């Protein structure tokens, strides 16, 4: 018959729906089925951010806000199914607890202060440079052999993260970290 869930949801079953709701036999001009809230909306695909099965998802957006997230039945991996976490992703996209501002906590303070990105990033870069310049080790002596080696590394700073980052982000993080001489680079895979 070739009726997929997608076709049914998009109206392939509208005639039957019309009949079930109104009790009258449906005709093409008198279908009273309620409109689908995702009708006519932009749909993009994404992949679930939780476990590593990699379920496909479809996101519907209206006026710049996510109005629906559901499983992508085109994905051979999950064929449209999602577990409770994936099903709840809508509440990651729409949640007043999401961080929306850069926050800064000064030494000894008991509260957050809102700061502009520029301020925060300039200060962070300054701290990174200070720490790097202060703790950079050009040479190190091997205590067993007494020989001196070039190590060119920054011992005073570490980066942890991130299994939730995209590949391209992981790559740039790895590249950035090594460029500033970090060896203390770790993430969730170590746990």
């Amino acid at each position: 018959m070739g009726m997929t869930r997608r076709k049914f949801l998009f109206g392939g079953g509208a005639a039957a729906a019309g009949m079930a709701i109104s009790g009258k036999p449906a005709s093409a001009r008198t279908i009273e089925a309620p409109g689908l809230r995702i009708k006519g909306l932009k749909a993009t695909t994404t992949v679930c951010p939780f476990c590593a099965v990699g379920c496909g998802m479809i996101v519907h957006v209206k006026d710049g806000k996510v109005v629906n997230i559901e499983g992508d039945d085109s994905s051979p991996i999950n064929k449209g199914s999602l577990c409770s976490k994936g099903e709840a992703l809508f509440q990651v996209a729409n949640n007043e607890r999401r961080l929306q501002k850069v926050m800064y906590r000064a030494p000894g303070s008991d509260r957050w202060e809102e700061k502009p990105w520029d301020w925060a990033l300039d200060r962070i870069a300054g701290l990174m440079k200070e720490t790097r310049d202060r703790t950079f080790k050009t040479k190190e002596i091997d205590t067993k052999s007494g020989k001196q080696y070039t190590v060119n590394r920054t011992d005073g700073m570490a980066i942890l993260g991130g299994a939730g980052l995209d590949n391209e982000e992981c790559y740039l993080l790895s590249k950035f970290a090594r460029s500033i001489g970090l060896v203390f680079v770790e993430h969730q895979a170590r746990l």
Partner: protein
Amino acid sequence: MTNHWIDLKNSDCIMTIGCNPAENHPISFKWIEAAIEKGAKLITIDPRYTRTASKADIYARLRPGTDIAFLGGLINYALQKNLIHTEYVRDYTNASFIVSEGFDFREGMFDHWKEKERSYDTKAWTYAVDGAGKALRDPAMKDPRCVFQLLKRHYSRYDIHTVCKITGTDQDDFSKTAETFCSTGRPGRAGTILYAMGITQSTHGVQNVRAIAMLQMLLGNMGIAGGGVNALRGESNVQGSTDYGLLFHVLPGYLPAPEYKDETLASAIARYFPRSNEPKSANWWQNGGKYMVSLLKAWWGGHATDANGYCFDYLPRRSGNHSYNEIIRKIVQGRMEGLVCMGMNPAVGGPNSGSVREGLGRLKWLVTADLWETETSIFWKRPGANPGGIATEVFMLPAAASMEKEGSISNSGRWVQWRYTAVEPPGAAKSDLWIIDQFHKRLKALYRKAGGIFPAPVVKLSWNYGHGHEPDVHLVAKEINGYFTRSATLKDKDRTVEFKAGDQVPTFAQLQDDGSTASGCWIYCGSYTGKGNMMARRDPADLPDGLGMYPNWAWSWPVNRRILYNRASVNKAGRPFDVKRPVIAWNPLKKKWEGDVPDGGAPPCNDDKGVYPFIMLSEGVGRLYALNIKDGPFPEHYEPVESPIRNVLSKVQNNPCVRIGKNVTCDTNKYPFIGTTYRVTEHWQAGAMTRNLPWLVELVPDMFVEISKSLAVAKDIKNGDRVRVTTERGSIEGYALVTSRMQILIVDGNLVEQVGIPWHFGYAGLATGDSANILTSEAQSPVSGIPEFKAFLCNVEKGGRKI
């Protein structure tokens, strides 16, 4: 995973050990059920009767931390009953190799233990070699010094009776498991082993995985459909983050991160990527130098030349262990100035988290990038903290969620899938891509303006991702794939191919060590080629064989191969062992392979130009006997560092290579029960991504402690009572969940109760609760550095007041 999720449907027998797919990878169960519908058997081995166990044909209870005893018992069973795939074992593993006299195992220790260094001399455990340095072999596998005979002897000690004494498993359950799973040794039958943190989070985690791999090699299950060694990874892109070298010991593509003794690029390459003297070994890592040079070209561009060793000196050199536990140790000791956490929450996720939270206060500065407030970002105002006494500067950067950015992620099956931006991030939130770009650009500007210590690697870093607001993710992906830096003419089999500067490299076989190619990660070479973004493909058609490979959906590494080691799925003539489910097959008329992307295009073994299947090892064959593994060439059962009993198998309680810290104890008077941690479906990892979502909080609102009915009676605890759990590290409280899923174990004649605790909770978020990792210790595997979260000693008492 050597295989992938959908491939599970092809299996005849699925064994889960140290994992719980029904609850933690729920959608994967579709494929497990598909196999069951076709008659496959599911075997679940777990301390607790989980939802996976409830669907299993056979459930075998296992004491936390005793997986090697169990797996060793299965290895022994397969060997004693001769259920192994003999042809496969003889031809495709090192079973026939003769081992030198340097190896022996006596009284619980391998030979060549160096007491002063507290380590083994692994070089002594080599093969016996001929004059040309090639390993001696006995194809009949009868020589008493051959791997096969040594293996038999070692595991002969793992008889059912001894094994079950150690693991607490019912002997009938063990026998059924052994009989059913080892029946997959017959060619034409496929067995797969799924594992996760129950296996890895142990002081002998690496040896656990080794035991799984050895069993699978003995049964001929590596490289076949429905077979393999399959790690169920826990985060959407932990596969990718590992692939891109976000661990101290590796660079992208698993290239070794240089050590202090690697003084030049040439010496590093010579040390890391050995030649092989086996003509039939592809020894693929011998090409490592090309990937190293291509990476350096991607990182320092035109500055990286042959004359300066491609800027090899710009790479930092490590000395020893810089792993997570080391980082935390330095932080706790006040010897770390700054920490950047990109979507990581060590205040909940790491062991001994009480110590972590306190230690964060000794940092000079902390930067977090997250979607939510986390226990790490608000450590300074956590319950009981005195903010006035904490001098740390903290920056909490708002980050974009998965549907608010474009890029790729890699699932556990190595499938790399592209995803798109649906909406902009809320408020001032930004993608991590933008944030990292800002870190680099601003730091570079500072070094350019003010100079400083060794600025060259920073200011000369190649960073060309367009002139937009944030890096063009497509340009990043293209650099990762790799491109030609100048025109090149290469040989491809019997023809020549011309490339211009800027052309994408089609596949990693064409990466060069002469500076003509740049590639950020060789195993992703082929993901974004001249033909476009292979990761974004959405062709949902499967191959006619119906094995579920979907070769044109997304892209898998390496080179879109779906099943690794698939050359082991055919015999030496290139004919599939399993004719019903052939992964690849050699077509002798067309002189090519058909099916999955073969593990190297060389013809079958028997051909002059043929190669052995395990192409990433220098011998070309799988290692039943391992070389260069710190804690032993054969897995041996030792007790977890906190254990209620003396080791039954030998006089040696713990693997001697394991460092035992001061904060662990085996005092069962104080801590009589075995504690273990686990996960639930509704929450995820350290909890920020789920404990802030009302729908999920409604499903699981509270922290709980799972105990058996017998323990509840013994401690006068009822379901729902507040209880406190205490270990040598700390104390937490939660609601008691009294179930029959947990049962008392009989271990070497002693009755031992277990306590199971989900670790998702913390003091931040909408739903809060105590963190299980307050209880766990840093005791770690000497090889992988992964802490032993899964087995410790604790006490449980009624009453919620923490001590």
